[in-house]
């Protein structure tokens, strides 16, 4: 490009950047935006997440309701809140485009169900069979299918080394079928990160029955968390 033309274009570019990205200009825009927001009294506002209701049943006359009333009903009764602008607009458009009301209702139920799952807090003491006289052992390995099949090769040895001990396996529920019919497994536990915390798992009192797990194994720590088994300073070059 001709140097004079390049200089001219450079000047224009700088001017354009200044007009559009000037710091003062942008700060002013942000200030105006903040000032335009409605005043919120944070001392009285309730910050608790409202509980959703995945069991809500539609009234018999739901087809007779206007689109506006139907949307507000779903938000209020299932999600326990007022519709937000984006959500309201989206569902209004969908209804205007003849989306089936049952389908929209099912979507809200799914959202409420998923929200409910997030709220579930598992008490570990409810999962274990604490009334059994046996001791308890836990192997936690979150995933995956190949690794979980491999660790079944350790179960026989577990029962030889720890007789009268119930073996619990903690992994992702989608892998539970790997252990179907396995005579060594007492119970399967859906994976949560707490089941990888050794201190929490073996916490005990002097009364042995109050010990959560008497034996705890985390085989994946050396393969899925720390990968030093791969080389131990010896490169694994292809043959």
């Amino acid at each position: 490009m001709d140097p004079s033309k390049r200089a001219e274009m450079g000047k224009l570019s700088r001017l354009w950047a200044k007009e559009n990205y000037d710091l003062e200009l942008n700060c002013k825009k942000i200030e105006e935006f903040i000032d335009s927001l409605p005043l919120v009294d944070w001392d009285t506002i309730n910050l608790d997440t409202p509980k959703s209701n995945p069991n809500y049943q539609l009234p018999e006359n739901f087809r007779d309701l206007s689109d506006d009333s139907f949307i507000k009903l779903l938000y209020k009764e299932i999600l326990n809140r007022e519709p937000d602008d984006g959500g309201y607009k989206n569902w209004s458009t969908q209804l205007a485009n003849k989306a089936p009301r049952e389908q929209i209702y099912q979507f809200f139920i799914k959202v409420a169900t998923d929200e409910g799952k997030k709220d579930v807090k598992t008490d570990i003491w409810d999962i274990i069979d604490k009334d059994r006289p046996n001791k308890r052992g836990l192997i936690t390995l979150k995933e995956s299918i190949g690794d979980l099949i491999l660790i079944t090769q350790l179960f026989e040895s577990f029962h030889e080394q720890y007789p009268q001990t119930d073996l619990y396996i903690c992994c992702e529920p989608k892998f539970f079928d790997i252990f179907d019919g396995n005579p060594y497994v007492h119970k399967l536990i859906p994976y949560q990160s707490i089941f990888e915390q050794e201190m929490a798992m073996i916490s005990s009192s002097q009364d042995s029955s109050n010990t959560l797990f008497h034996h705890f194994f985390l085989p994946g720590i050396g393969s899925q968390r720390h990968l030093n088994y791969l080389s131990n300073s010896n490169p694994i070059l292809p043959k």
Partner: protein
Amino acid sequence: MKLLPLYSLSTGLKIGKQFLAEKFFPLSDDSPYITLHASSGMPSKNYPYFNEVFSILIPILSSNNIKVYQIGAKEDSPINGCIHLMGQTSLHQSNFLLKRALIHIGNDSWSQHRAGHIGVPVIDLFGPTAEANHSPYEHTQNSIFLESHRWGRNPSFSNQEPESTIALIPPEEVVNSVLKLLGATITLPRESLYIGPRYVQPSLEWIPDAVLDPNFAPNQPVLARLDLGGDENNLFQTLSARKLHIFTKIPINLNGLAQFRGNVELLIIEFTKNNLITKEFIKAVKSIGIKIQCISYELDSEELSNKRLEFFDYCQINKVTHKTREDFIYAAKRYQNLKEWAFTPTQSTWFRSNKFLLARGKIYLSKFHYLADLPTQDFGKNVSQMVDHEDFWREQEYFYVFNQELKT
């Protein structure tokens, strides 16, 4: 160290018998079979050329009454010629199938650990993982582990690789491993020289010199090559019935584009030295709502710089380059992991194309073959002798090049 000894070491528990329940799965007959598991927990572990492998093996296996059952998840890509059981068997039914297989073939996945343990010979392929760590702890003596050369590097253990390492295993090594395990006396006398990164995905191009049959490969993306010829009437008639990508060097009738805009997936516009594309055309196409991509092969840096300034408010023009013979030699050396390689194509050097150009009512394997009017008979006949020509090299990324004694 392999995984199982590691688990044993970290738990202090001895290694014993593996336990996995088995459930009956009804098969249509008692023919002997081999199992294929073409997927795994990581995309980078999946071998991309099983279709190539089984296109060679299936006729040999069929003549010996040996079937191939493909197991895995329902979303796995089906491999041609296999009996597809993906998503149809539970874990325990897959286990049933594995136990009765002559051989099990696949990537580094659970089925290898299981087949190895129950004494089924395995052919196990490794790219981003290593035989040293991830092969089955137990396996028959004749099991075969094929590991990518990875240019001599350690495995990446990565879910996604910028350059697939498992793709560096030549298809003939997999074919010959199967033949060896089956006790065959024949081998595939092939030497893979290069497989382009786009070879694995079939590609269809069409010159609009006639209307394209709307029932032809309706779900396959087709690129209309207006730059190579044809006319707009055929283009718009075809657009009325199917979706197309369009490549052009000249403006196209805007009314036609607007009428069928829903079927225009992408409009690729090439800027040339004798450029006919105008700012008004780009602006109008964008206002219709058609996605565009602007490129230039021909313009040098000065011309491109000026053109970019001129079109600054309308589109971004990307510089692209044609692949050359030198690019091929460099890529082939990388594929074969050779520092030096004297490329001397012979009568036995062939290429297989997964790119088809439809024009004059015929099928061509490349632009070179179109320009020389050397069509192929059908889509199944996609092997031809390699050509040492500039136009051929431009499309090298779509080709698989190999040496083999073949009948012409």
